[in-house]
């Protein structure tokens, strides 16, 4: 496109920047010096238009060639103060974009931008600069302080919402950067929040959206000032606009506290029920989880409530976030030890009702939760109330319909459960029960052994063997529970996802060094196995490392424990008194909790989270009362001790004690983990390369040669004098190259032209459309010709043989009548048959419904026009071409006998021109005429067809001709002749060809067509009729129509594409045409103008 654009814009001036861009884009080789020089010099072109484009292009140049940034930057900086606002704007644009990615390098420009900000009136420039300041302030808080005042002024003064909004945004950025340094900017925050509230309350949804967006930025640092507008945010959750609801959701994230979490989540849950689209519902789901799990479940005071929320979420139809819920369940169950008993109860209920969760295939996303449920029930099976029941639930045949990875977890955890049950039964000395459980497993496990999933199959068959072995032992009354449980002894701890990455490489370990010397390349392939075998043998003979004895192991363990204890990141091993207690074996322990007895550990059935909300309220209320009591006591004590506190009853977040003393286990980190968090930089970021110090003075090697005026005073240093030479040198090849390139391009273009033309044709001609049309034409002629012949068949069947004679000599009265009638009807007939053709084409050509023409009666139309007329005969004619014959047209001449004479021996002849010739029978000379193959009784008309060969069709032409005939009546016969002028209009070379709009668009996209237009005033005809007229008389078809605008297409017999855009104004019609031949187009349009003038 660039190339083609450059070619299509003839002014060489505007072309240059684009060429530069093309070069910058295509540069795979070394940096073309002339390109750099080009944009360099264009930046100071006299025309602001060129400067503007050159400046903008520099951005791309920088991206592609970062090394050019430093040398070019001073010039770019100059452009910030260009007298032309457009250039200035472009420079601001480029620098802002550069600075956005690497702001620190542009701090030194701050004063300049500050000046611009206070002086410029162009809102676009202002917005850009203000946005840039937003990026700069975090790096330089002092800048922020300076900005606050002018920005607040702008906020107060501007009427442009876009500017106001960006000002608020930047003030927010400033405040964020200042929040650490200067705490007292509450006035500005207040102003911002106030303005944003106005935006959010505005009826304009766009402002509402942006207001919420900005609000979320404030939220991060000044949550308190935003939380005051919670009402507004919750209100936006009910907005009909999804974008706004999503923004409001984002805000909610920061608005929750211990106090309102339950309330907010409750509100979200009702939204989940109401939500229509799955996307929004999924978004809600993830938001609920985000909100609850944020900063290590900071705001959750009651995990039972959270678990029940998660369980409720599993009832969502068709969510894709089952895995998210599962992850949360696992996370909570593992890390909040106090909740395990409750979680296990819930999960076993979930497993029990697994058929509900996994019943319909569209809920497949949600069955992920079964993964979590199975694991939790297995891992923490000691908390199970009815382990046997859960075990049976997990072994149901239905389970085999679950996805493989879930079945695998089922199988594994079935054994854990089994182990727990065995233990339980053996302790109770209930051997028969223990054997029953084993039997159950032996019976049910085979269904998993048959699984198509390898993992399931493998696990199941392993376990089946194990259980069979256990069965044997049980039969011998050997206690096995201890050993089976040993399979799952020990606790699984959560490991932080980044843990592995953070393990420092121990000193002296070189991971790149060879462990063994690499095998020499000379070694041939077939020797290798041998070598390996030898190696193996050697290994066997190698003395094995002495096994560490028990003492040594104990010593090492102790050392590691010490190390871990000293490591702040190894939280798990720093033994809190509570943990030590937990770690004591065999003790089922719930931490030092004061479990509130009002919170039942097991709510019958699926607990509704709402119940918890209520319970929680009650609990808090009681807590508050207690606290108040305590306070009162304290106060009383204090009162006695003279000092007095005014204690307003405000419940702050911190006052709410969690229901359970939850022990949130932090994820484990490896020993010696590095506390760095900077590991997420993408090395592919192109802006990294542009992270260049721009303030450092240019080294000589970096300086760009500068083109100077010949008489400029700066030709002092010899170094600079050399420079223009260099440039001349580099400029010459550029021109050559350009020419060469253009030639190439032209060549290519030509090639493409041919190719595309073909392609276009292929894509346009729906099969058989044209032949069908032709057939129709033929049919009309045939009926005219044969009507006279076919009619009698019905009445006098035996007259067939005499028919010709009949026709010739003694036409019956009846027939005469018939013919007369026929004559009267003929135009109508024609009209009917002809008329039907174009609309049919229109339909075919219109894949888009919006263009269909409404049914409206069309005026009668005939394409036959008068050729010549005298007292004997009247000739009307029509010219038709076909796409199959690119240099032929068929002229259909209707000859109508207007006299009482019998007309015979008719012969038509024309004076051939160089361009158009009448096709004559073989062997006849140019002067011979072509005989008309019929005779005409009085009052009869018939049609004869003559073929002409045409060379060029781009211009209309006329051929002189004569029809000679013998008129015979009662008085005798006379030789007569009639001269005529056969007019081949350009239109007559067109063939109605339907075209689909896609192909039409592609054709126009190619850009190879020349354009021309006409406009005709004073048109009163309806657009519909107008189009029909153009379709009929000019052989176009409608490609698409939109209101009073239509695109049309036709094709010449020689393959010229003709495209039209017809637009109707008040009283005028404009026709824009595009065609592969300009002459043909202008002639066609002229002809069309004549037609339209009569409308």
């Amino acid at each position, binding site marked *: *496109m*660039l190339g*083609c*654009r450059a070619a*299509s*814009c*003839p*002014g060489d001036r*505007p072309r240059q920047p684009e060429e530069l861009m093309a070069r910058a884009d295509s540069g795979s080789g070394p940096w073309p010096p002339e390109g750099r020089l080009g944009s360099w010099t264009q930046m100071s072109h006299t025309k602001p*238009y060129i400067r*503007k484009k050159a400046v*903008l292009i520099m*951005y791309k140049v920088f991206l592609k060639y970062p090394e050019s940034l430093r040398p070019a930057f001073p010039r770019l900086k100059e452009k910030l103060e260009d007298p032309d*606002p457009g250039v200035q704007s*472009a420079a601001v644009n480029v620098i802002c*974009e550069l600075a956005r990615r690497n702001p620190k390098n542009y701090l030194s420009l701050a004063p300049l931008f500050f000046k611009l900000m206070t002086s410029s009136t162009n*809102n676009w420039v202002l*917005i850009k600069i203000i946005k840039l300041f937003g990026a700069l302030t975090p790096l330089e808080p002092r800048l922020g302080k300076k900005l606050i005042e002018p920005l607040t002024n702008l906020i107060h003064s501007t009427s442009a*919402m*876009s500017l106001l*909004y*960006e000002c608020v945004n930047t003030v927010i950025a400033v405040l964020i950067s200042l929040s650490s340094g200067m705490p007292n900017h509450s006035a500005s925050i207040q102003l911002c929040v106030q303005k944003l509230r106005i935006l959010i309350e505005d009826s304009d*949804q*766009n402002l*509402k*959206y*942006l207001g919420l967006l900005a609000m979320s930025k404030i939220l991060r640092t000044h949550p308190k000032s935003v939380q005051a507008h919670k009402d507004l945010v919750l209100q936006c959750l009910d907005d009909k*606009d999804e974008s706004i609801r*999503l923004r409001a959701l984002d805000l909610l994230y920061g608005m929750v506290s211990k106090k309102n979490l339950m309330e907010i989540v409750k509100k979200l849950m009702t939204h989940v029920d109401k939500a229509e689209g799955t996307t929004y519902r999924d978004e809600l789901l993830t938001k609920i989880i985000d909100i609850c799990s944020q900063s290590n479940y900071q705001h959750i005071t009651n995990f039972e409530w959270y678990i029940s929320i998660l369980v409720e979420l599993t009832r969502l139809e068709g969510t894709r976030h089952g895995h998210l819920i599962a992850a949360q369940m696992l996370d909570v169950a593992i890390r909040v030890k106090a909740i395990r008993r409750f979680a296990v109860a819930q999960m076993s209920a979930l497993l029990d009702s697994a058929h509900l969760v996994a019943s319909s295939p569209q809920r497949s996303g949600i069955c992920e939760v079964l993964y979590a449920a199975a694991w939790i029930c297995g891992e923490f099976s000691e908390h199970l109330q009815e382990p046997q029941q859960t075990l049976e639930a997990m072994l149901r045949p239905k389970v085999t319909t679950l996805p493989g990875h879930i079945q695998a977890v089922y199988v594994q955890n079935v054994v854990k459960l089994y182990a727990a049950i065995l233990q339980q039964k053996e302790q109770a000395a209930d051997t028969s029960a223990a054997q029953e459980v084993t039997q159950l497993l032996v019976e049910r496990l085979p269904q998993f052994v048959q699984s198509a999933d390898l993992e399931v199959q493998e696990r199941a068959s392993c376990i089946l063997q194990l259980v069979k072995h256990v069965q044997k032992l049980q039969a011998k009354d050997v206690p096995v529970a201890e050993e089976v449980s040993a399979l799952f002894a020990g606790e699984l701890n959560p490991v932080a996802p980044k843990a592995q990455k953070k393990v420092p490489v121990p000193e002296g370990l070189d991971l790149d060094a060879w462990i063994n010397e690499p095998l020499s390349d000379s070694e041939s392939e077939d020797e290798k196995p041998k070598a390996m075998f030898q190696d193996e043998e050697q290994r066997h003979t190698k003395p094995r490392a002495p096994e560490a004895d028990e003492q040594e192991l104990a010593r090492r363990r102790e050392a590691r424990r010490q190390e871990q204890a000293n490591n702040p990141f190894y939280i798990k091993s720093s033994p809190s008194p509570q943990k030590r207690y937990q770690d004591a074996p065999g003790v089922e322990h719930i931490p030092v909790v004061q479990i509130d007895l009002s919170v039942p550990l097991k709510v019958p059935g699926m607990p509704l989270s709402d119940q918890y909300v209520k319970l929680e309220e009650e609990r808090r209320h009681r807590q508050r009362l207690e606290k108040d009591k305590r306070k009162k006591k304290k106060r009383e004590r204090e009162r006695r001790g003279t000092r007095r506190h005014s204690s307003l009853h405000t419940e702050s977040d911190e006052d709410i004690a969690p229901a359970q003393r939850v022990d949130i286990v932090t994820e484990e980190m490896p020993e010696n983990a590095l506390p760095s968090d900077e590991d997420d930089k993408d090395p*592919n970021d*192109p802006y990294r390369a542009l992270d260049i110090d721009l303030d450092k003075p240019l080294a000589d090697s970096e300086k760009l040669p500068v083109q100077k005026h010949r008489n400029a005073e700066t030709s002092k240093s010899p170094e600079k004098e050399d420079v223009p030479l260099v440039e001349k040198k580099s400029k010459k090849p550029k021109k050559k190259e350009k020419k060469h390139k253009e030639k190439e391009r032209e060549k290519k273009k030509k090639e493409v032209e041919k*190719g*595309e033309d*073909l*392609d276009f*044709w*292929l894509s346009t001609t729906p099969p058989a459309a044209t032949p069908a049309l032709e057939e129709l034409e033929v049919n009309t002629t045939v009926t005219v010709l044969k009507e006279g012949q076919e009619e009698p068949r019905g009445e006098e069947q035996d007259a067939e043989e005499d028919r010709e004679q009949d026709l010739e000599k003694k036409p019956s009265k009846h027939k005469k009548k018939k013919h007369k009638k026929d004559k009267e009807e003929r135009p109508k007939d024609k009209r009917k048959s002809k008329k039907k053709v174009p609309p049919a084409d229109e339909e075919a050509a219109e894949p888009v419904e*919006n263009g269909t023409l409404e049914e409206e009666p069309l005026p009668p139309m005939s394409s036959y026009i008068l050729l010549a007329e005298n007292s004997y005969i009247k000739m009307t004619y029509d010219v038709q071409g076909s796409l199959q014959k*690119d240099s032929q047209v068929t002229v259909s001449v209707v000859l109508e006998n207007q006299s009482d004479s019998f007309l015979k021996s008719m012969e038509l002849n024309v004076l051939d021109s160089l*361009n158009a010739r009448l096709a004559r029978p073989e062997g006849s000379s140019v002067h011979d005429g072509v005989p008309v193959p019929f005779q005409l009784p009085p009052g009869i008309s018939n049609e004869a067809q003559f073929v002409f060969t045409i*060379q*060029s069709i*781009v*211009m209309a032409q006329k051929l002189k001709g004569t029809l000679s005939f013998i008129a015979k009546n009662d008085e005798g016969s006379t030789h007569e002749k009639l001269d005529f002028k056969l007019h081949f209009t350009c239109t007559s070379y067109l063939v109605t060809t339907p075209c689909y*709009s896609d192909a039409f*668009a*592609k054709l*126009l996209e190619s*850009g190879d067509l*020349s354009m021309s237009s006409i406009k005709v005033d004073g048109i009163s005809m309806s657009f519909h009729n107008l189009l029909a007229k153009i379709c009929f008389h000019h052989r176009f078809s409608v490609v*698409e129509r*939109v209101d009073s*605008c*239509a*695109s049309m297409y036709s094709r010449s017999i020689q393959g010229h594409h003709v495209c039209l*855009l017809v*637009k109707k104004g008040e009283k005028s019609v404009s026709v*824009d045409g595009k065609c592969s031949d*300009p*002459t043909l187009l202008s002639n066609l349009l002229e002809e069309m103008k004549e037609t339209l003038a009569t409308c």
Partner: protein
Amino acid sequence: AWRAKKIQAILVFNNHGKPRLVRFYQRFPEEIQQQIVRETFHLVLKRDDNICNFLEGGSLIGGSDYKLIYRHYATLYFVFCVDSSESELGILDLIQVFVETLDKCFENVCELDLIFHMDKVHYILQEVVMGGMVLETNMNEIVAQIEAQNRLEKSEGGLSAAPARAVSAVKNINLPEMPRNINIGDLNIKVPNLSQFV
């Protein structure tokens, strides 16, 4: 992949989702482009006229930093996909400027103009947005530039085309053989690669 463009794409399609102007400033394979247009259309179509004109494109193009900012005129949707460095309200204004410019350049602009005058439309767009960056926001500037371009084209077209026309007319009459388009039935339809616009 890193996106270097502030404006990632400009899509114009009608109420039926038929693309009228598609301009990507980032290279995408043809199928992806079509998919993006299709999905964008479905996103935008769902939205009433009286709700906000911003849409988080999300996975569509560019990722979370990108937004779809659109306007709906009678039969056409104008959708800009921009990153966060652009002012949302500014882009809305820019769309208006673009549409008004089109209306000025094509009397009584209609969606079919975008197809018929595709070259000109791209030229106008090029004056507004260049390489994914906003070049000019002042409509008068843009129109002036387009008019200058038209004048230039006319003068060149008038000078160069007139003799060419005469020559071709004469040649066509005398030449016995004219180069003709031959229709070959089994060539694949070549889809012009839109990425050449980038």
